[in-house]
């Protein structure tokens, strides 16, 4: 069942077009990550869904009911904001209980107590209920904010970068808690983030947004198999897609500054971007026919493996390799882009210009 549907949502603030024709739909129990860089329109999308912002055009449907013109109170969505929106005048308990004491969602006080205690237990803040908000650490505040959303069991949870202010360790443990929360309650969630790993850890589907436009909305497997836009490649993956400016020759594609000719679309002289997931790039430490020579510019040790950055002229890419790969900083290295694994994008618009999936989902 479709819980939430956005159609043709557009919104501008003065001269700035924040959303352009956003279409999205969300099934019951689904967790959708809204992934995009800062200023892409993630927050505006969420605010339109919550009713805090009125779209210039388009509509918001909740449970097949058009709520575009209704107030936030009548929508039954909960938002966890990026900043902490807790009331400093109230205790942790009263903050979590706030929605259940409001005119719209009022419940009997004994039920409120039960729900608050349960939500606090889910987020492991049961021991903090009597504290004042300013006595809490950032991570604790964020848990309280999530508990406050959880306690009401709304139709849709809107999480706006709820973890970006926290340190890595806390973020990972809260990711687990958010996941446990929606698995336990079957909640429908939109999780807005600019961070691919945390979005990938939480979401069942991803919508990639940039410049107020949804570039692609699909499962992670589908996105990897068939990225629709160069920006999708830049947003997805860790490290993200390697992209090389290139030129069409009529018979194939020549990557700028590399002795590499690849089969591909594009008329002679047409500018394009050749993209490939770093996992598909083949490396060797010895000169080999059909491989291009580059230089290891940087290496990051990540414990079990390492990420290397390879540069050739103005071209560069990052790739995770085994620790035992003999490639130190400054060493030459040879690489190859297997033809079937390469995507082609228009250099000006970023749109894909070869058609159909070139590779099945990994």
């Amino acid at each position, binding site marked *: 069942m479709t819980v939430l549907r956005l159609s043709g949502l557009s919104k501008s603030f003065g001269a700035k077009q924040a959303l352009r024709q956003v279409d999205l739909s969300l099934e019951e129990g689904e967790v959708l990550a809204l992934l995009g860089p800062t200023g892409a329109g993630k927050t505006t999308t969420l605010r339109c869904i919550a009713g805090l912002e009125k779209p210039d055009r388009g509509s918001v449907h909740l449970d097949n009911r058009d709520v575009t013109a209704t107030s936030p109170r009548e929508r039954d969505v909960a938002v966890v904001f990026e900043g902490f929106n807790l*009331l400093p005048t109230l205790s942790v308990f009263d903050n979590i209980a706030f929605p259940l004491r409001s005119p719209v969602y009022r419940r009997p006080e004994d039920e409120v107590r039960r729900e608050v205690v349960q939500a606090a237990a889910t987020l492991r803040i049961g021991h903090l209920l009597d504290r*004042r908000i300013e006595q809490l650490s950032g991570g604790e505040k964020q848990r309280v904010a999530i508990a406050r959303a959880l306690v009401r069991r709304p139709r849709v949870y809107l999480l706006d970068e709820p973890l970006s202010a926290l340190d890595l360790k806390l973020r990972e443990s809260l990711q687990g808690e958010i996941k446990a929360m929606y698995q336990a309650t079957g909640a429908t969630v939109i999780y807005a983030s600019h961070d691919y790993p945390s979005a990938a850890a939480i979401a069942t589907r991803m919508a990639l947004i940039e410049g107020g436009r949804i570039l692609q909305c699909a499962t992670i497997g589908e996105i990897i198999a068939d990225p629709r836009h160069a920006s999708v490649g830049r947003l997805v993956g860790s490290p993200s897609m390697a992209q090389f400016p290139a030129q069409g020759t009529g018979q194939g594609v020549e990557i700028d500054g590399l002795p590499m000719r690849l089969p591909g679309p594009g008329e002679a002289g047409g500018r394009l971007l050749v993209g490939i997931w770093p996992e598909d790039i083949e490396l060797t430490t010895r000169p080999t026919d059909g491989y291009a020579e580059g230089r290891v510019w940087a290496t990051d040790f990540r414990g079990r493996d390492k990420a290397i950055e390879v540069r050739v002229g103005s071209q560069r890419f990052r790739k995770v390799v085994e620790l035992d790969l003999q490639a130190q900083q400054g060493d030459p290295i040879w690489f190859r882009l297997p033809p079937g694994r390469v995507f082609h994008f228009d250099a000006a618009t970023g749109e894909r210009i070869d058609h159909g999936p070139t590779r099945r989902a990994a």
Partner: protein
Amino acid sequence: MRQAIPAGRTAAHAVPRAISDRTICGLFMAPALAILLLMVAYPFISLLYYSTLNFSILNPAKGSEFIGLQNYTRLLSRESVWERFVFTGQFVLATVVVQFCVGVAVAYAFQRNFKGRDLLFTIAMLPMMLCPIVVGFLWRYMFNSEWGVVNYLVTLLGFGKIDWLGVPGNALWAVVIADAWMWTPFVILLATAAFRGIPTDINEAAEIDGASPFFRFTRVTLPMSMPILLIAFLLRLIDAFKQSDLFFAMTGGGPGSDTETVAFRLGKIAFSHFYTGQASAFAVIMLVIIIGLSLIFVRLLTQQGRQD
């Protein structure tokens, strides 16, 4: 590193030790302290001193006789003095309540965005900038029972003319209206500042969580602006307690001395009768009351601060 410092420098460094940090501190504070002593401590101590004398500034030749606390006992045993306190209390209560109800409501209305809001806000601030005596005479003419605009409106509504300033009960309310007209803008100003200081996030979150505008006002807006509203309340309370100009201009304290506030009576004792000693004692009593009120509020404020 130590050795690297030239000998001259270490020596120069050693010289200021002759004057300790405390002394330097004292030297820097001395001018401010001197001004404070001269402007605050000296008058206060002399006030305390005069309050124990039977002394009139008009007749210094008659000398001043030390009479201990007799000025105080004489004042406090006089029923007319207690009546002034009761009257002042009624006035303070009425005017502060009116100012806060109207001021907070208007400030809340000003939170909404509408055309001409800033202009309207500026106009609303004007009464506060006027001279109290001018405001007093203005309202005195408006409340004039024969040709004042207030009674004109009253008759338009079909009622008989009201003797606003000639009857003590009416006069109290007439001055309350004038005082509230003049000082509600102050409450609007501070309440607006308090309301604007509340992050919009918090209100938006409350709205999403099902809070109606009234619920948000009582559960979010008011508690979060309480520290500033408390300060505004204290300032208005003290100011209302000291009110005398409006009564001077509007009723002259009359009929009889039925609309004299404490401050008004103090002015009369000091500068009409020139009973300097007794006036000093009266001023000390007022001061004690004001300090007492302030202490209560400082307590409340620090408690609030500890909670938040």
